[in-house]
């Protein structure tokens, strides 16, 4: 099979973007695949942007009417606008997925054919309490201790102190690789 891009060299790279539902297939030679930036290996970020720009452009066509309203919005964490995400092909940060979920959803659906993660979940690991969660929990416990001491409930305060110790000590027991 010949490369769909240059129509000269043998296509050695074959990609299909969706498994469930309608698929989009590409058959490219190594050189054109490299240039298109469709792959993780050996491509620079700007090239990658081109590819994702293409990825998102379909969605732009689908919901162009929704864009003006969304385009003024910026991610509260990283400051990305939807326009910048589409232009660069890079999602700005984890919170962008929340901020622009409605706009990104059709593309995600098209790319993966599913919108429900199944697989490893770091939060189901009992030893993994995320830094944020842990900090929040510690803060709450310390407030409870203060309240318990104010109420002269020393037994409760001692229990709370033990829990804080456990939580802070839990940090050091991760095994070596």
């Amino acid at each position, binding site marked *: 099979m010949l490369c769909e891009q240059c129509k000269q060299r043998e296509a050695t790279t074959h990609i299909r973007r969706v498994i469930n539902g309608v698929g989009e297939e590409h058959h490219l030679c190594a050189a054109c695949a490299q240039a298109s930036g469709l792959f993780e*290996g050996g491509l620079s970020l700007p090239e990658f942007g081109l590819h994702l720009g293409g990825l998102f452009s379909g969605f732009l066509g689908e919901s162009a009417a929704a864009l003006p309203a969304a385009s003024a919005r910026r991610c509260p964490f990283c400051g990305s606008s939807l326009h910048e995400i589409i232009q660069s092909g890079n999602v700005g940060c984890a919170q962008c997925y929340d901020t622009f979920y409605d706009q990104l959803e059709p593309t995600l659906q098209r790319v*993966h054919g599913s919108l429900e993660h199944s697989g*490893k979940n770091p939060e189901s690991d009992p030893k993994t309490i995320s830094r944020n969660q842990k900090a929040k929990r510690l803060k709450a416990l310390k407030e409870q201790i203060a309240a318990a001491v104010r109420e002269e409930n020393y037994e409760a305060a001692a229990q709370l102190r033990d829990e804080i110790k456990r939580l802070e000590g839990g940090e050091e027991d991760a095994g070596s690789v």
Partner: protein
Amino acid sequence: MPEAYENQNDIVLSTRVRLARNLAEYPFPARLDIKGRQKVCEAAHAAALAIAPELEYIDMAELSRAKAVSLAERRLCSAAFAQRDQGGALLLRKDCRVSVMLCEEDHIRLQAYAPGLALREAWELADSVDTAFSRKLNFAFSEQLGYLTQCPTNLGTAMRASVLLHLPALARLGRVGRLAESISKLGLTIRGAFGEGSDAEGALFQLSNQVTLGITEQAALENLQAITLQIAEQERLAQRELLKDPAIENKVWRALGLLRYARRLDSKEALQLLSLAALGACGGALELPLDAIYQLMTDVLPATLSLDPAAAGDRDAARATLIRERLKAES
């Protein structure tokens, strides 16, 4: 399959499982300046010191170009990452079974390797290092979308598992294209292992899973395992078929002659000859140590070769010498 070929290692050179992870506290790498990237590298480095002190921290800015490119040739980092200077670092285990790219396309790209077809082994290694990291670092994760990545194509498990295949007979018979078409329907992708060439030099191909959201790591690995076994079997049949052709048999022997006696070889010719010799060895026409040939297919690459002080002068001559020494006739 001869019993000597455990783990399908007559066809499968190596297995890699890569996991993409990001720190929730920072924007993704493309949105960070050099200082921001350095902070991410430092955070990951600090975590690594606590959980896996055996990982060596390599600041990409301090590496010579040849050393950086050699890492990519040995598939320990991506080619794009090898070009990176400021704000990128690599954590590398001495035996090269674990490498972690920091601030490549994602904050963390953790890779575990195993020789031959060993998806379970590579996954378990990647999984254990990832779990250890996750107890020190706050990974960006959502119940619905899984691990959050800079590029939406990696959402979900953010796992890319791949096997490096040597398919000289299928490539020669022009069957890789058709094969690729059918496997693409199963959510997998195959491509030449050397992106830069116009054809798959050395007949090396990388087969990997493509879809990451909505499919568990286990299911993706099983899928990849099953397809790899089928491709390996097809390649063996094709090799037997091909070696019946006296013209091919002749090519295989001529390749061995050149490998053993040539005084200068460029890397492209060396790869082609090594691939032919490996075909002869797999099909039983040549008695050659296959693992040595496959090792050479990495060691003769330009940057890796240039790290050898002996290659300081004439690189093509050094390449031919290296091959001659490794493939010395027993007699």
